[in-house]
Each structure stands twice: as structure tokens, then as C-alpha cells.
């Protein structure tokens, strides 16, 4: 049976919503939920693949509220992959976190239902973010992701998670309010220049983006940048990020870091595409470069001196997104393409790493890396996968991030910012110094305390290995996989908005 694009999109949007509603109601038992959850995610994944096959990257699909072009297709692939991985690892994770000895969640009754309901609606809203065509709705959905994920972050309702959530909601909402202001200003510009019909419609604005009034546009951009930048976690608006990531359940952290930040980047880029022609790229690239590099610079010291494994990972994703913003700010095609590729790679790797971190925490009952030694001896499989993941994260071949990082950095040099490129490389070396130090401490040496046994199951290793290999294949063989290559080229064109 073959659907057309619209039906596929409806399927994609319908399934998670229905499932979350179902699992929110208290009917079904655990196992049914687990299987349903996998089924739904797989279905959505399949739908996305079908969409990818039917969708032609050159012809964007525009509905009344739905808009699908190469960029959003790319985002769909990212979210879909993570969704799939999430569904297939969630059972093991929940069992682990509810086990008698170490689990955080053992106190709660009926937690699968709640967890699945929240997670799936969370994913659903993210799917919505990349599918809507209205800047205002984009804002609404982003804010909604904040609120839903807040409940996920607070899922354990421990003191720490409450604190983290409070900061998360407060800081993010303030930021998002600024973004709302920016959106309002954009609408104001639109009113003054084009009148009120199809208001805030992205496509419409994109077509008429030349007509905007530069001064106000710049004014709007400031608010939008800071607002969505808060959501992306650009320093100095990043302060909520490490808390939220470290306190959320491991899978949620993976989704937050992998897909939510990517969605924020996506929305910011969508807005910037609109404002770019009227403002001109100098100011924008200045903003992106400065805040991007500043974010990396802020992340480094917190990684070098760090005890909490998940906080370390959180800062490393700050570093990645800083690098991506900087690469976006270069406005050269190579860098833009590599930046999108890195969105993908980073999402995969970071999801697997957060999951590994959850495993390690389950095995040793602590987040404190200083208390973990000799994993190679005690839990060889987790240790191997952790090492692989970290190596992948640090951007070494043959894993995916290497390829995207290589070309992002190359962008610095062909857009004559060579010294910024050198600076970035220095900062990345700093990241490596920090992360590798902690990980080696955990892997090597003689074990000091007893581990709860190898919690890293077979399916888990399949999924994680699959993620890593998928990233490698897509990045290394991009030249060969024409459909993705084509998609990525178009997405990069859209990102650059016809500038370079």
C-alpha cells in the first residue's frame, strides 16, 4: 500500500498522540505498553522512511498548517531515529531504574504509563515543531516542549530533579517569552509591509522576505536569537541545561540533547532565514560566531573539572551546539551541510552516550565518576561501548562526528576566519582533555567498589551499535547514498536562504 505525503504526515502525527493518550489512561499492563510503544515508534519510523522515499527534496510540500521541505525532512529523520532508539531501549531502562537495589523510580506505581504518555507526547510535539509552517505555531510548540519535558525532567520528584526543573522552566520560559516578543515584532513588520493575510506563514514570509524593514528586523532578530538561544543552550543562557540533562531520566536526557536542542536550532534557523535578506549576514554571522565560540569556551572548564557523568555529557552537547551555531554563522555551503550532518551525528551519538551513562549509573549506583574504576574488568561490555561512544563523541574516525566536524572546521578556513578555526581546535582539544581524562579513570585501574553486574543487555547493544554504525554509514558514504545526499544539499541551500 502506498500513501501520499499528506497521509504519511497524518500517520506520523497521529500515532504517538493516540498512544500517549492510551497509555495515560490506566488500562493497559506493562508488557502491552512496552510492545505497543515499540510498535508505534517502529511504525512512525517506517512512515518517515516511506515519506523520505516518496518525498522529492526539490518540491517542498505545503499544506495549510503543514509545511515539509528538505530541512524539515532532515529533522524528521533525526527525530525519527531517536524515537526508534528510544522505544527499543526504554523497556530495559525502566526495568533497570525500577529494580530494587539502585533504581531511582522504584517508589512509583504505574510509572510505565506516565513515562510513555509524557515521552510520546514530547516526541509528538517535536514532530509538530518541524512540521508546522507558522512562526507563531513554532513558538507555541517549542514552549510546549519545554513544559512537557519539564514534567519529564521532574519525573523522579527528588529534590534535585525538582530544583533542576524549576530552573529549567523559569529560565527557559523567560527566554521563550523574549522569543515571543521577537515573533510579535516579526508579525508587526509583516503587518506594516504586507498586511495581515496569511500571517506569520513561513513560506509567505520567505517569499516576501526582501520587503522587510531592516531596523525592526534586526530588533526582532535580537529577541529571537536570545530567546531560542536559551532553548539551544548557548552561553550565557545555558545555565538550565546541565541541571536538566543531569537530573532527567537517561532516555529523556538523550531526547532533550539529541532532538529538542536540534528543534530549537531548527526554529531559530527558520526565523533567521526570514530575516536574513533584509538584515544582511554580517550581523547574524557575528552573533552566531561569537555566541557559538563563547559557548564552547564556557563548556570547556566545566568538563575539565567535573564529577557528574551526565553533566559532563551535557556540557559536551553545549560544545557541539556551539560549534554548530558557529558553523552556521560562517554561511558557506560546506559548513552548513556539515552542520546539518552534525545535528544528525550528534543526536545519535549523544543519545547512545546518555543511555550508556544511565547504564553506568545503574551499575554503580552513583553519578560520581570519581567513585567508578576498573569498568574494563567488571563490566567489559558496557565499558567497550562507553569507550566507543566517547571516541565517537570526541570526533574520531571512523565514527560520524569526525566527518561533520572536519568539514565544519574546514568552513572556518575557506570563509577566511582561519584564526577562529585555530581557536576552535584549541577549545576542542580542551574538551578532549577533560572528557577523556574522566572516562579513562572510569575504564582503567582496578575496581574499588562492586558493580551491580552487567546491566547492558543484548538489545541495548544492538541498538547502540546500530546508532553508531548508522552515523558512520551515513557520514562516510554520503557521496554514495544519493537520496540523503540530495536531501542534505537542498537542506543546506534552504539554510543558507539563497545567500551564499
Amino acid at each position, binding site marked *: 500500500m502506498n500513501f501520499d505525503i499528506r497521509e504519511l504526515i497524518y500517520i506520523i502525527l497521529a500515532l504517538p498522540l493516540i498512544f500517549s493518550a492510551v497509555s495515560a489512561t490506566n488500562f493497559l499492563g506493562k508488557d502491552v505498553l512496552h510492545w505497543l510503544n515499540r510498535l508505534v515508534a517502529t511504525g512512525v519510523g517506517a512512515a518517515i522512511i516511506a515519506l523520505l522515499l516518496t518525498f522529492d527534496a526539490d518540491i517542498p510540500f505545503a499544506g495549510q498548517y503543514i509545511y515539509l521541505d528538505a530541512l524539515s525532512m532532515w529533522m524528521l529523520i533525526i527525530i525519527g531515529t531517536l524515537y526508534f532508539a528510544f522505544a527499543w531501549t526504554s523497556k530495559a531502562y525502566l526495568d533497570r531504574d525500577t529494580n530494587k537495589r539502585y533504581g531511582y523510580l522504584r517508589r512509583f506505581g504505574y510509572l510505565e504509563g506516565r513515562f510513555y504518555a509524557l515521552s510520546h507526547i514530547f516526541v509528538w510535539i517535536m514532530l509538530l515543531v518541524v512540521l508546522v509552517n507558522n512562526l507563531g505555531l513554532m513558538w507555541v510548540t517549542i514552549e510546549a516542549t519545554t513544559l512537557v519535558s519539564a514534567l519529564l525532567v521532574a519525573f523522579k520528584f527528588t529534590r534535585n530533579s525538582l530544583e533542576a526543573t*524549576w530552573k529549567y522552566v523559569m529560565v527557559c520560559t523567560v527566554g521563550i517569552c523574549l522569543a515571543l516578543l521577537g515573533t510579535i515584532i516579526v508579525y508587526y513588520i509583516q503587518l506594516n509591509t504586507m498586511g495581515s493575510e496569511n500571517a506569520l506563514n513561513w513560506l509567505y514570509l520567505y517569499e516576501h522576505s526582501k520587503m522587510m524593514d531592516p531596523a525592526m528586523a534586526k530588533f526582532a532578530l535580537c529577541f529571537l536569537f536570545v530567546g531560542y538561544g536559551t532553548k539551544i543552550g548557548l552561553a550565557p543562557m545555558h*545555565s538550565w541545561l546541565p541541571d536538566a540533562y543531569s537530573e532527567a531520566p537517561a532516555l529523556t536526557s538523550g531526547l532533550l540533547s539529541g532532538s529538542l536542542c536540534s528543534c530549537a536550532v531548527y526554529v531559530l534557523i527558520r526565523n533567521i532565514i526570514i530575516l536574513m535578506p533584509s538584515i544582511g549576514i554580517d550581523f547574524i554571522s557575528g552573533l552566531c560566531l561569537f555566541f557559538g565560540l563563547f559557548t564552547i569556551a564556557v563548556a570547556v*572548564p*566545566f568538563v*575539565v573539572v567535573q564529577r557528574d557523568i551526565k553533566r559532563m555529557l551535557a556540557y559536551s552537547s553545549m560544545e557541539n551546539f556551539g560549534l554548530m551555531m558557529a558553523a552556521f554563522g560562517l554561511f558557506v555551503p560546506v559548513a552548513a551541510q556539515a552542520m546539518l550532518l552534525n545535528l544528525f551525528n550528534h543526536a545519535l551519538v549523544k543519545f547512545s552516550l546518555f543511555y550508556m551513562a544511565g547504564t553506568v549509573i545503574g551499575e554503580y549506583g552513583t553519578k560520581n565518576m570519581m567513585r567508578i574504576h576498573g569498568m574494563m574488568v567488571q563490566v567489559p561490555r558496557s565499558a567497550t561501548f562507553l569507550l566507543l561512544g566517547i571516541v565517537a563523541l570526541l570526533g574520531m574516525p*571512523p565514527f560520524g562526528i569526525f566527518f561533520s566536524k572536519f568539514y565544519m*572546521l574546514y568552513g572556518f578556513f575557506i570563509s577566511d576566519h*582561519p584564526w577562529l578555526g585555530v581557536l576552535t581546535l584549541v577549545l576542542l582539544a580542551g574538551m578532549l582533555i577533560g572528557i577523556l581524562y574522566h572516562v579513562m579513570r572510569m575504564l582503567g585501574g582496578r575496581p574499588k567498589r562492586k558493580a551491580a553486574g552487567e546491566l547492558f543487555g543484548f538489545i541495548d547493544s544492538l541498538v547502540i551499535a546500530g546508532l553508531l554504525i548508522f552515523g558512520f554509514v551515513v557520514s562516510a558514504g554520503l557521496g554514495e547514498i544519493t537520496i540523503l545526499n540530495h536531501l542534505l544539499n537542498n537542506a543546506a541551500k534552504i539554510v543558507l536562504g539563497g545567500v551564499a
Partner: protein
Amino acid sequence: MDFMVTSLLVYLLGTVTLVWPKKAELAAHYFGMLCSIVASGMVVYSSLKYLLSAGSRWLVDLSWGQYSLQADGWSGAFLLLTGVAGVIISIYALDYGKGYLGSRIRALGGLWNLFLLSIVLVLISGDAFTFIISWEIMALVSFMLVNHESEKKKTVSAAYQYMVMTHIGTAAIMVAFYLVGSSAESFSFVDMAQNSLYGYMKDAAFVFAFAGFALKSGLMPLHIWLPNAHPAAPSHVSALMSGVMLKVALYGFGRFAFQFIGMDVFWYGLIVMIMGLVSAFLGVLYATMEVDMKRILAYSSVENMGIIFSAFGCGMVLYSMQFPMLSVVAFTAALVHAVSHSLMKGLLFMSAGCVMHATGSKNIEHMGGLAKKMPYTALFTLIGSMALSSMPFTSGLVGEWLTLQSFITLSQQAGSPEMRLLVVFAFILLGLTGATALGCFVRMYGIAFLGRARTHIVEKAHEMPFFMLAGLGLEAVLIVLIGVMPDLLVNLMQKVVSGTGITPMGNPLGIMWGGSGYYALYSPALIFILFVFIGVFVVASVYRSSTFQTKNVTWNCGTVPTSRQQYSATGFSKPLRRAFDGILNPKRRTTYLRKEHAYFGRKLHYELSIPDLFNDKLYKPLQQMLINSSSSFHRIQEGSVSIYIGYTMVAMIVVLIWGVLL
């Protein structure tokens, strides 16, 4: 090329051992090693092809667009070196690796193949991207190999240090590639050769490239990882790292110097030369002070890489002074010494492995009299030590001699006093290096293999199994062959460097300088023949009437000499330590354990440590600075939500102001 690709596939086949079933570990080990032997043999074969067709260049595009392979004379030389080392060391590892039964031996075998594979890939990669990928994989795999015995804390920290340093080096190399590549059409070496770099960008490219490759080849002060990583790794791994991996750095630097950046700027070569000389001398000096066998060898690698790079730099200087014909000598010297060093360092690391295998210790202070326990190992080690202290009839002297000749060549062209001073400086350092190297290896060999056993660990020492000895023996034979008949190798390398080999009056190693008709000659074969010829007579006349007799132990003023009366390694190098106190500044600590009485029955415990100069003065402070600054930086994240919102407001205002101003 297809043959080369086949060898790569064989290596890949060898990595199967990673997922080999745990029951048949030994089979996995043998399988992996055999694969690496076969593949390396194929590499040797195909490398000869490229060597003989020196200068020819052709590309093979793998089906995936951006990856391309190529091979020419320059890479052929290093492929040869890699293949030979690969074959021999793998043969050695057939027996040596058994020591790791039950401790991840499968990973060892698989990573071993991967390591060789990545090295070969680096050597035949045809564009910067492929180069960097294979380079990084090489670094990664060697890191994992160094980290193999990860239960030991020292190993872990050494591996960490190695990874950090090599990553920084890679970053520098990447910058260099970016700079060159961004001024060329594409990253493929052919296009990069026609780059349009100029001015300070070119200088920057050179500096970054040199920094990166110098770090990988362990030149001072970037050597810091080397003396820690080599002892931490399993012996055959450290043999390969020191024998081949360091040379690969030379290969990369050669690419930059010959093709991308050019050597027409005087101070490029100057920097290379001076850095090489300094690290040659300091390296061998530290080697002479060490008591850990593998650390001695590691520091000696620093020394030899220093010599190689100094010769290379000398060549660059000559080239920049418009004497391309003369620079051939220097580049040939660099290549020849690279080959011979890979042979002899491989040999000695392997024999260090044998000694560890036999005694379970690396500390030569605990050894002595091993020659009687393991005669063959002792013989081969003697040859290796002779080679490393560049004695005649070994390959060591060939490279050393060519290096000296290249510096003489430079001195011929040195008109101005400052150039004269430079040459004098070079020769003083070279002389010091040569003599100190002799002292170093006399010390190592003498303390470990001669005299009497210092501790009981020597008692249970035994001769090595066949394959290990075979590995040692092959290396030793090659060393002596090259030492006695260097013509073939030298001419080959000369052809690699330049089409024309300069061989006056039938003398293989004659070198002609521009202008005058004099030659510098070295005909080791003749010397060897005479030496043996007359030596046989002397020996015959000495041993004809066997008048040797062993009556009693040595006269020791009436007492029986104990083995503790021998000179210890530390004592042996004492005069040198005194001579170079200023550089080494050793830390001495004397603690009196029992001193109730001023003279009798007082025990004192004397402890001497020679910290690495750069580690103390440069790296430790840097590390401290990094950590302190980071922990002080944590104050911006103190956990108060109002302050966080404050940050957002501040950012907002800053951006607004920026927006208004711009």
C-alpha cells in the same frame, strides 16, 4: 595498486580476531599474526615496485568520491620500511603474544592488524581527507594498544597522555592541511601541490605542519608522551610504534616540505635542523640516565628521530641556499637513517620484550649476567646496541655517516661567520650525541647482559622460544647486511630523493661536492674484509695454544667479591650526570633510617630521580594552570536561579546594544 589493495584486505581479514569466539583464543592469535605477516610481505613486494619506478605517480579512486589512494617513491620508501618491520615483528609476536593468553589476546591480534592497516593507509592516501582519517585511526588504534594492560594505573595515565598529545598534534596537522587546502582546488595531493599560499599564511602552514609531525615523531619538547607510552605498550607494539609510526610522521612532513609548502625559505630548514639536533642530544642524555630498559630505548628513539630530522633540515637549508644537488645527500641520509633506525629499534624493543619475558622486570639494575642465560638474545642485542651506537659494520653507521657528510656539505657552503657558528654548533651536538649514545648502550648492554647476576630474578631466566629469536635474528642479519653492503639501500634511497644517484669511481658511498674534485669515501665491505681477514690471523695466533685457565675468583684484596660490588647502572652514568648537571638537575634525597650512633649501624636510603626538564618546567605547570582556572571558573554556575535569569537579561541587553550599534 590492486596488489596493495589486496594486502589491505588481508589486514582487514586479520581484524576478524576481534570477534573471534572466546574458546579458540590461541587460534585467533595465530590467525591474526599470520594475516599480518602475509599482508606485510605483500606490502614489501609492492613497495619495491613503487621504489623502482621512483617519482612516478598515479591515483586510484575508491568508489566513494572523496577517498583516493596513491603511491610514489617517497611513500614507497616508507612502505618498504613498514612492510619489513611488519613481517619481522609479527613473526616475533607469534610467540611473544602468547603471554597475553586470557587477557584480551583477541583484541590484541585484531588491533595489531588494524594498526598496520592504518599505517599503510596513511602512506598510500592520496588526499588530505583520507590522510587525516587514516592518521586518526592510527592514533586511535595505537592508543588502544598502549592502553591494552589497562588494569595498571601507569598504563592508563600513559595512554591518556599519549592520546591528548597526539590529538593536539593531529589538530595542528589539520590546520596545516586546511590552510593549504583552502588555497587549492581540492584536498587531493595533486591539487594541493599547486596551492597558492604565500606570506605569513604559508609560514603558519609550515609551523603547524612541523609542530604536528614533530609531536608525532617525538622531537623535544613535544616528546613528552613518548617515554611513557612505549614502556606501557606490549613490547611488539612499542617496537612497531617506535620503528614505524615515528617514521610515518617523517613521511608526512616530507610531503609538506617537498610538495605543499616548499623549502625555499631559509628559516624553515633552520628550525627543523636545530630542533632535531637539540632533541638528538637531550634525548640520548636522558636515555643514558634511565634505568628502565624500555624508557632507555624510548629516549633513544627521540635521539634518532632528532638525527633524522636534523639531516632533513640540513637538506632543506641547502635547498633554500640553491644547492638542490647537494641537498640530495642530506635527504638520502634522513631516509637511510630512518630505515636503519626502524630496524635496530625494532630489534632492541623486541629484545627488551625477551628480557621482560625472561626476568619479568624492565629495570636493568636488577639484572646482570643475562648473556650466559640467554646467549642468542645476548648476541642479537649486542648487534642492536652496536647499531644504535653507530658502530662500523652495522647499519647505524651508514645513516650517521651520511648525516655527518650532509653537515660537512653544509659547512662547505657556509661562508659567513654565523653560518660557520651554526655548523660548529651542529657538529658539537652531533659529536656529543654520538659519544653519549655509545655510552648509553654500553651501559645498557653491559649492566643487563654482562657481569654477574645482581638479583635472583636472573636465576630463572631462560632462552627464548624459536619465533622470538627468529624475529631478533632477522633484524640482526638485516642490520649487518646493510652495515656491510649499504650500496643498494643508499642508491635506492638516493633514487627516491632524486632521479640521479651520484656514485663516483665505483665507490658506493663516494660524495662529490660542487667545485673541488675530492671525495669522501666509505667502503665498509673492504674494511670488513680486511678486518675479518687479519682478525682471523690474530685470533688464531692468540687461541692456537689454549693457554687460558681459570684458577679462582678475581683478586679482591683478600675477600671474595660479591655481585653488589659491581658498578650499578646509576653509578655508571654518574660522571656524565655530573658533567651535565646544569641540564639534568637531578633530585637527590638522602634519608637516614637508623642513626642512633654517628658511625655504626646507621642505614641511609639514597634516592635519585631525574625528572624530564620539559615535563617539570612546561607541562606540569600548564596542567595545573588549566585545572585551577577551570575550578575557579565554576563560580559562574553557583545554582541560584535569579542569577541565571540575570545572565539571560544581560545577554539580551548586550545583543540589543550590539544590534543598535551595528
